[in-house]
């Protein structure tokens, strides 16, 4: 997937980090902060939701469905569908409703990872 917006607004302005997919408009954002997502540092802005920060960093796949293992991402953005639930500092929370704070540790696909780590049946497949 290409994005003309990403090319049109290169990373000269520190306020706007362009992503390959979802693009931040130039509005007066709060201070830039850092999230650690699956061990990788991602730039976000204080107060935007974790889910949106992940999307703007090109992370649209947040988990895999428990049965079919199909990719899932943020869908309703209002805390209803729970599709965007990720592990944030040890708690499973809808990332679309959780304001980003500096230093938050985010683990995507947390339930699948936990199950895969603990389930002998899964490793036998």
């Amino acid at each position, binding site marked *: *997937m*290409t*994005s*003309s*917006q*990403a090319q*049109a607004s290169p990373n000269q302005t520190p306020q706007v980090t362009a*992503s*390959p*997919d*979802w*693009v*931040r*408009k130039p*509005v*007066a*954002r*709060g201070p830039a902060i850092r999230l650690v997502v699956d061990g990788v540092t991602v730039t976000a*802005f204080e*107060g*935007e*939701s974790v889910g*949106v920060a992940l*999307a*703007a960093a090109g992370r*649209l*796949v*947040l988990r895999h*469905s*428990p*049965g*079919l293992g*199909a*990719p*899932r*991402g*943020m*869908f*309703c*953005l*209002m*805390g*209803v*569908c*729970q*599709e965007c*639930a990720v592990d944030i500092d040890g*708690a*499973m929370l809808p990332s679309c*409703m959780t*304001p980003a704070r500096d230093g938050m540790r985010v683990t995507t696909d947390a339930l699948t990872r936990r199950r895969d780590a603990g389930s002998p049946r899964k490793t036998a497949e």
Partner: protein
Amino acid sequence: MTAPVRSVDIAVLGAGPAGAEAAIAAREAGLTVAIIDESPRAGGQVWRAPFYRPSESDIRKSPDLAAGERMRARLANSGAETLFGHRLWFAAPSLTLSTVSADGPHWLSARAFVIATGTTECVVPVPGVTLPGVVGLAATTILLKAHGVVPGGRVLVAGVGPLLYAVAAGILESGGRVAAVVDLSRPLEWVAALPALATRPDLLRRGLGWATSLRRAGVALRFGHTVTAIAGETGVTSARIAPVDADWHPVGPGEAIDVSCVAIGHGLTPATETARLVGVPHVYQATRGGFVPRMCADRATALPGVYIAGDCAGISGAAAAELSGRLAGLRAAHDLGALTADRFERLARPVRARLRRAETFGNAISRLMTVRPGLARAIPDETIVCRCEEVTRATIDRAARAGAEDVNQLKSTTRCGMGPCQGRMCAETAGQLVAMARAGSRAEAGQWTARAPLRPLTVSELVGAYEYDDIPKITPLPG
């Protein structure tokens, strides 16, 4: 325990236009009020607070943002206690409310409870709708308005109602690209709604402004069309669109378009789970968005102390929500003895009149957006209807034909509606499919029984931090 039960006169659930007005009206009558919302700030979805500090020119350009900022200021000055970032997970019929927030569990005991939970967006599933990069229409407005983020690449905007044009115009204005707008309604259906729409010339003007900017940008507007499938591996790469018949069933194979995001929505349905949990009876009214609570005069219900305001009592729009919220707050204050009958009448009469006018507009939009059965009929057998539990249409049909008479029997036999969203995403479609398979009505297919917890929560969130001495013990200790 660490958090004892606190008491207030009135608890309000939901800090959108309806809840905020209810809280303000009750405060003006001198009562203590706590207003609860999952979001970090007031505004609800229609006036969702931006996470950034909007500039004066941002506010001038957006009527919704301006209305939201005014409301947030009034609520802040009202003296209502705000419990934001609180997820309500249980509401006992005694009006003891249980919430969790980042700092643990909370309990609130209220003499009156105003429910203003708004709506859930309805999306009738098509193959591929669960792919990352497919988002709700209402979700896209939140993305644009509250986060200042625009989906990249080519966005297909599809579904029904004025939100289509608001979202498409918003994407263009934000520098994004719209592949096409795919509207289930036909131009003549929009024309038929005009007399009612003309009662709100401001909103009609906004709508025409959106249409103009889309035409100028050369965006393809496909009326009487629907999305029939979305394709991609880990994200969206294309979508298929086709014309629909009068019942909204797609006709023919249609055409595929390259897109990288799909914003899709099929109207709003009242978020009734809290009202159902406390025991308010509901009735089915398709043109008001689905099941709606049975209401008494001035937003009261058959349950003493329980009032319902805004779109969660039937879709009527933001203007009506504000007024019905005010009415609910006044009525609750009257019933608690804070307003005399005379004073209540004087305050309520002009609100009732304005509410009736506002509802004319809201109800016309709601009728235009009423989902027709062809959409659900067209869902292929292998398509997932319940996103959480991955229950397909074929499984639902089989259960219904095998004897599941309503959505609760469907849930028991298939787990449809039993996942983390608690059936909020698939309720309408599951109900339609059960009704169709049994040749019955949507009303007969019923609603899920509301169950606590209303939102997913962990036992540790519920227990919170506690000391040994907090645990109740029998004294003297046995032995």
